[in-house]
């Protein structure tokens, strides 16, 4: 794979297999499992290659078990690939050299690094010492990030007393204290309410703009991906099947637009069949699916032919489209 100076991350033909053993139910199965354990390799990731340039925000999409978290773990050096090469910031991640570890951070939505019974501030000062920050540097950095994350006295309250959103923001603060240039975020908004999700998203977007940090993100919330990731990498059963622009993906997934019309006077359903596919209908409301190339023509005809109070054009829900994509595992 040719190396370009602007490429920060190179993943070349990477694969990961996990060795597992199945056990049959019951006593017989237990004995067999104990004396004659049969193990086999399950592929989690197969021959995946891509490059990521400095400052990009890339979303990894895939159903549960698709292999996106495994991929993230290999890129941050937590697990060793079975085959292939990974290069992050010029380092081989699995060697976990100090200089590499100072360049990266990993945030896992459901895992915490903060000490449960102490205030986040204690954990922050441990991290500061581990990463070699002076007390002054640590203080300035904590204040800076706390402002961005809207954290105040929560930092001096025991972690166990914080809400999930406050805890997550504190986790992010702890993970960013050492100014990493690559952020690996595995479901960072998992379990958060809508407002907390929005705050984390706006923080990440601002952090990326201010620091130019590269962000690699997995999330099951499409809002995270649509708000943050111009580029997405889609994985299905351990294989990469799409790597590119998110908008292009959305367009290719949905060649049609939804046209919702509110009528002044009731009309019959059959009057609308020639304009597009009818999604929903009642006397004075209709929702049509219209192909993009006919959209202008159809809208102008509707405005001419009917007495319309309101007209709205939108994309079909992206969650639904991506959900269908995961089932299908390919882009048309």
């Amino acid at each position, binding site marked *: 794979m040719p190396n370009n100076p602007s490429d920060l991350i190179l993943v070349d033909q990477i694969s990961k297999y996990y060795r597992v053993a199945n056990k049959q139910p019951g006593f017989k199965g237990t004995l067999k499992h104990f004396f004659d354990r049969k193990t086999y390799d399950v592929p989690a990731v197969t021959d995946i290659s891509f490059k990521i340039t400095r400052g990009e925000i890339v979303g990894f999409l895939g159903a549960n078990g698709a292999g996106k978290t495994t991929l993230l773990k290999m890129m941050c050096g*937590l697990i060793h690939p079975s085959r292939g090469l990974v290069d992050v910031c010029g380092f081989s991640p699995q060697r976990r050299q100090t200089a590499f570890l100072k360049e990266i951070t990993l945030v896992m939505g459901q895992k915490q*690094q903060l000490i449960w019974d102490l205030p986040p501030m204690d954990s922050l000062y441990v991290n500061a010492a581990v990463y070699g920050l002076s007390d002054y540097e640590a203080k300035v950095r904590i204040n800076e990030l706390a402002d961005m994350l809207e954290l105040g006295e929560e930092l001096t309250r025991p972690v166990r007393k914080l809400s999930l959103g406050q805890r997550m923001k504190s986790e992010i603060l702890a993970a960013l204290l050492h100014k990493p240039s690559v952020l690996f975020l595995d479901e960072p908004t998992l379990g958060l309410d809508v407002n907390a999700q929005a705050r984390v998203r706006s923080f990440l977007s601002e952090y990326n703009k201010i620091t130019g940090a590269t962000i690699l993100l997995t999330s099951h919330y499409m809002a995270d991906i649509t708000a943050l990731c111009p580029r997405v990498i889609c994985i299905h059963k351990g294989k990469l099947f799409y790597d590119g622009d998110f908008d292009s993906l959305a367009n290719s997934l949905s060649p049609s637009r939804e046209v919702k019309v509110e009528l002044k006077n009731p009309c019959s359903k059959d009057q609308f069949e020639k304009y597009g596919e009818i999604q929903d209908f009642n006397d004075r409301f209709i929702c049509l699916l219209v192909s993009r190339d006919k959209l202008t023509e159809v809208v102008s005809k509707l405005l001419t032919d009917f007495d319309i109070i309101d007209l709205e054009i939108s994309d079909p829900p992206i969650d639904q489209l991506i959900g269908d994509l995961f089932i299908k595992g390919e882009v048309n």
Partner: protein
Amino acid sequence: MSFKVIKTLLTTQYAYMLEYRIEIALWALSGVLPFIMFSLWSQNDVGNTFGLNDIGLARYFLSAFLVRQFSVVWVVFSFEEDSLSGRLSPYLLQPLHPLLRYVAAHLAEQATRLPFAIAIAITFFILNPSSFWLPSLPQFFLAYLSTHLAFSIAFLLQSLVAALCFWTEKSSSLERLIFVPYLFLSGLLVPLSAFPSNVLKIAMLTPFPYLINFPARILAGMPVDIFNGFLAQIFWISILIPSVNILWKLGVKRYTAMGA
């Protein structure tokens, strides 16, 4: 590792342990096995068989209790829990060896135990006034040093087993392989002087007598080969450090970051 990291880790872990002071008091109380053994042996009047009178027996078991308080290790259990729950993952991605965090936790816990251990020792002297003694300063210093070395050996031995978590996932069950010989050969149940000479010779080839018996004898002011004792402690540490290091490096390659 800089002094600042050590200081910050220890103060943070101490603050953490103070949150659990009641539990630590109970753990300190749960370490009364040497007193139970003392009571058992003194009631059966077997002190002479061990080459000790009642006062010697009392001092030995009190010393064994104190040494145990400051050399007890549970790294295998914490490590296994962290490994299975995925808490190990962020530790592996920081420029600090994860085992050093457990060392800090143990040292902080020892500091938290100190007042409880002193209180238990005072209670022991109140109940057995004839056994009261204060070790000389050199004795205390040597006992202190050998207890720290005993802690290091115990920690490294358990770390060796803990590193097997990368292969077996439930390595705490393997800890029994260490705990049983530890129980019998360390001097926790009975002073090693009670052993037949051929058993004693074999026992002295293992690291276990240097975990309790050796420091306890120094603290109790009993005759002990100080030079060879320290030499053996240093020998075991110098064997165990590279062993843990090798096993750790091999194991970490197999880490699958379960639960994370």
